């Protein structure tokens, strides 16, 4: 260290900006969540409007609360704590502003495009390719600013919170890029480069680790900084925090396949995911204990301080969620919980309890410091804490009950060996009272959020006209430092300390851990043939079916319907033959879903006449009286985009789907011809005329194709599916 004293001020304006939008987007994202919760009990609240329907708004809710609410909170926390831990102003004010406005533009783009039906369908990665590119660019801007600040820091040691931030930065970049590799098929349309089983694997490698590296590691970093600050005592065990960090980095990345138990994913991958998930118990609880023991001797403060109250409950929920996560990854438990509300309850315990309450605690701690005035109302913050806590409990208890109820009903058999609840809608109707309790719990949580917003605004209003900018002093780091840490060397077992002083080396090792763990799973998954045995009868979709599949994706049908029948008796009896890996080789992207609010659709093809689908889409309660599915009247009115059909088929060829040149060239005409055939059968069955070029006919073509290939011999399945279509149509005339 040099003896040169440097003076500097922190950039708190960027923290204020991120904090204010955190509150704004939190309100928006949660309000959308409340609306879709209400839609499940009052389907009329879909308003027969495409951009207000459940399937399109559900991704808006998840993206808004994850990337807008939690995302902006992460940036506020990182910008505030990093400057102080590094004793340096952020490297570039301009990059900070670019990061802020770029991220808000991305959020607005998501808020517009998702309700309009532009979606890739992959959970938490629904945004289409132009927005994905923007996310990557803005993430690089954030990373440049963060690493630039590390480079000009005045504190040698990188405090553990910064390690968690580094892991977040590098892992999210890797996950985002590799899960969003697509072939572009239009200005707002793309197809995943992966298909079926491999796409499912990549998606849940991403999905699980988005939870790990977006909703866990940055918040742990914030816990290790803001909890000691609020409690005014150091973290209980710094050594435990080091182990917490490295075990999370080593273990988390392997765990993704536990989202795909009993699916067509190879068993070795799902077992590996389960084992690593169970091992995650160890670091997660180590971290939780470390957090709670930091309050040792300061518990009396918790009764008076809403900030500490929020932190204590948040850490408790972290412990609960990270106990339950590994539990759900155990195959026999997952067989019951998967596709039910149990997963939704688990996710909300983690997000409302851990993420939400960490954010609220941080906001209340930061408000007086950022706005340089007292918090407007401590009582209001206390009230927020209590109604928020009651809201979470109401929400999760009701939804745990709903999950267990539906899971048990799915698998119940009567004395004669038949399904006790063969009609799927019976299992949904049973959940409605619990869904009302969720509305109440969620409503309370949002009311708390509104109180927080009110407190923020009122505190902001009392801020001074000009903020004071305290000048800080610290000794500059010298270049000799590098030589110093290098001399410490491995022989003195100080290599970890050496890394801690060398951010670039440290970051490289984090990347190595994340990437190598990923490759250990990804390489065999992609390169070993036995993982996806091919089925000769499975052929590419016709151009109209492909267009219908795009409608299915656009409407977000996969948010309520799975396309994956597990090899479990209750499922094969209810839905038919279990799903095979080879059935999905042309599915770019996969559409297995993760929740059954409606029944599985993997074998829906040929089950009902075409007219049934017309009536069902027009008004689901006309065919299934107690259905909670929204109506889709616009599908019968909106024309199919035949130019997009041609682009779609061409893009599929790029992905390796074996269409002939004639099928590519004549994609639009072949689609029109198949549409005319289906429309004719609808008229013959007593339905309306004039549907031949509508989105509805495309969707019906797709649904009637689903799961039928394995029922045919290879000889009857022509490469364009036309002969098979004739067979299906004859079946559809029943």
């Amino acid at each position: 260290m040099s003896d040169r004293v440097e003076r500097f001020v922190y950039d708190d304006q960027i923290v204020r900006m991120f904090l204010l939008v955190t509150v704004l987007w939190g309100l928006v994202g949660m309000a959308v969540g409340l609306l879709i919760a209400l839609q499940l009990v009052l389907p009329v609240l879909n308003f027969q409007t495409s951009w207000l329907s459940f399937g399109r708004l559900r991704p808006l809710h998840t993206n808004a609360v994850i990337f807008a609410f939690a995302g902006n909170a992460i940036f506020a926390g990182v910008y505030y704590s990093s400057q102080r831990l590094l004793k340096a102003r952020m490297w570039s004010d301009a990059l900070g502003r670019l990061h802020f406005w770029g991220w808000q533009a991305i959020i607005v783009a998501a808020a517009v495009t998702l309700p309009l039906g532009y979606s890739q369908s992959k959970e938490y990665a629904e945004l289409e390719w132009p927005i994905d590119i923007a996310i990557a660019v803005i993430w690089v801007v954030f990373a440049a600013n963060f690493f630039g600040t590390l480079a000009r820091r005045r504190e040698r040691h990188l405090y553990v919170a910064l390690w968690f931030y580094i892991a977040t930065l590098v892992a999210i970049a890797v996950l985002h890029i590799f899960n969003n590799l697509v072939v572009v098929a239009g200005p707002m349309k793309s197809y995943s480069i992966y298909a079926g089983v491999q796409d499912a694997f990549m998606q849940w490698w991403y999905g699980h680790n988005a939870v790990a590296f977006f909703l866990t590691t940055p918040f742990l970093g914030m816990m290790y900084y803001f909890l000691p600050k609020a409690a005014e005592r150091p973290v209980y065990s710094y050594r435990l925090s080091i182990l917490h960090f490295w075990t999370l980095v080593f273990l988390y990345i392997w765990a993704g396949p536990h989202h795909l138990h009993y699916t067509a994913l190879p068993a070795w991958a799902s077992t590996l995911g389960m084992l690593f998930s169970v091992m995650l118990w160890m670091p997660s609880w180590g971290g939780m204990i470390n957090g709670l023991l930091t309050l040792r001797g300061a518990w009396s403060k918790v009764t008076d301080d809403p900030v500490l109250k929020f932190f204590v409950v948040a850490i408790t929920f972290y412990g609960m969620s990270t106990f339950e996560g590994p539990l759900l990854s155990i195959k026999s438990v997952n067989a019951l919980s998967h596709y039910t509300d149990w997963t939704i309850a688990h996710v909300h315990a983690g997000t409302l309890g851990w993420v939400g309450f960490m954010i609220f605690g941080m906001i209340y701690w930061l408000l007086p410091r950022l706005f340089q005035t007292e918090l407007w109302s401590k009582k209001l913050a206390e009230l927020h804490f209590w109604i928020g806590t009651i809201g979470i409990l109401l929400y999760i208890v009701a939804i745990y009950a709903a999950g267990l109820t539906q899971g048990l009903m799915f698998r119940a058999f009567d004395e004669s060996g038949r399904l006790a609840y063969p009609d799927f809608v019976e299992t949904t109707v049973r959940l409605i009272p619990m869904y009302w309790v969720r509305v109440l719990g969620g409503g309370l949580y949002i009311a708390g959020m509104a109180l927080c917003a009110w407190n923020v605004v009122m505190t902001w209003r009392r801020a001074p006209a000009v903020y004071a900018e305290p000048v800080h002093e610290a000794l500059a780091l010298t270049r000799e430092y590098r030589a110093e840490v290098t001399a410490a060397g491995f022989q003195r077992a100080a290599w970890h300390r050496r890394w801690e002083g060398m951010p670039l080396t440290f970051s490289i090792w984090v990347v190595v851990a994340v990437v190598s763990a990923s490759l250990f799973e990804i390489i065999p998954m992609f390169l070993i043939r036995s993982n996806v045995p091919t089925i000769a009868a499975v052929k590419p979709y016709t151009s109209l079916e492909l267009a219908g599949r795009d409608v299915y994706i656009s409407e977000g049908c996969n948010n309520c319907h799975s396309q994956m029948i597990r090899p479990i008796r209750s499922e094969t009896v209810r839905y038919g033959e279990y799903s095979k890996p080879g059935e999905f080789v042309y599915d770019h992207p996969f559409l297995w879903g993760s929740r059954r609010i409606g029944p599985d659709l993997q074998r829906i093809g040929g089950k009902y006449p075409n007219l049934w689908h017309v009536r069902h889409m027009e008004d689901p309660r006309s065919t299934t009286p107690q259905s909670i599915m929204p109506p889709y009247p616009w599908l019968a009115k909106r024309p199919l985009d035949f130019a997009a059909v041609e682009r779609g088929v061409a893009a599929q060829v790029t992905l390796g789907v074996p269409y002939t040149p004639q099928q590519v060239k004549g994609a639009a005409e072949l689609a029109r011809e198949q549409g005319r055939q289906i429309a004719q059968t609808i008229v013959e069955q007593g339905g309306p005329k004039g549907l031949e070029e509508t989105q509805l006919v495309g969707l019906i073509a797709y649904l009637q194709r689903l799961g039928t290939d394995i029922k045919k011999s290879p000889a009857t399945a022509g490469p364009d599916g036309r002969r098979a279509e004739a067979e299906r149509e004859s079946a559809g005339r029943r």
Partner: protein
Amino acid sequence: MSLTDVMSGFGLHLFAEAGLVLFGAAFLAIVVTTFLRRNREHFERARLLPLEDDGDTLKGREARTHE
């Protein structure tokens, strides 16, 4: 012979076992170095870092709200 042929020739157990050994060894090394007595002082200083910053603009103020 393609890469797929080569990879398909390997037993799957190789990947899981190699991963387990590598990650286990790395983790063990971190545990050892973390708990070495000679690093205690360093970690003790590190854990105090969040409390060192002097950026608290509230210091010395009376904590009062509108109530």
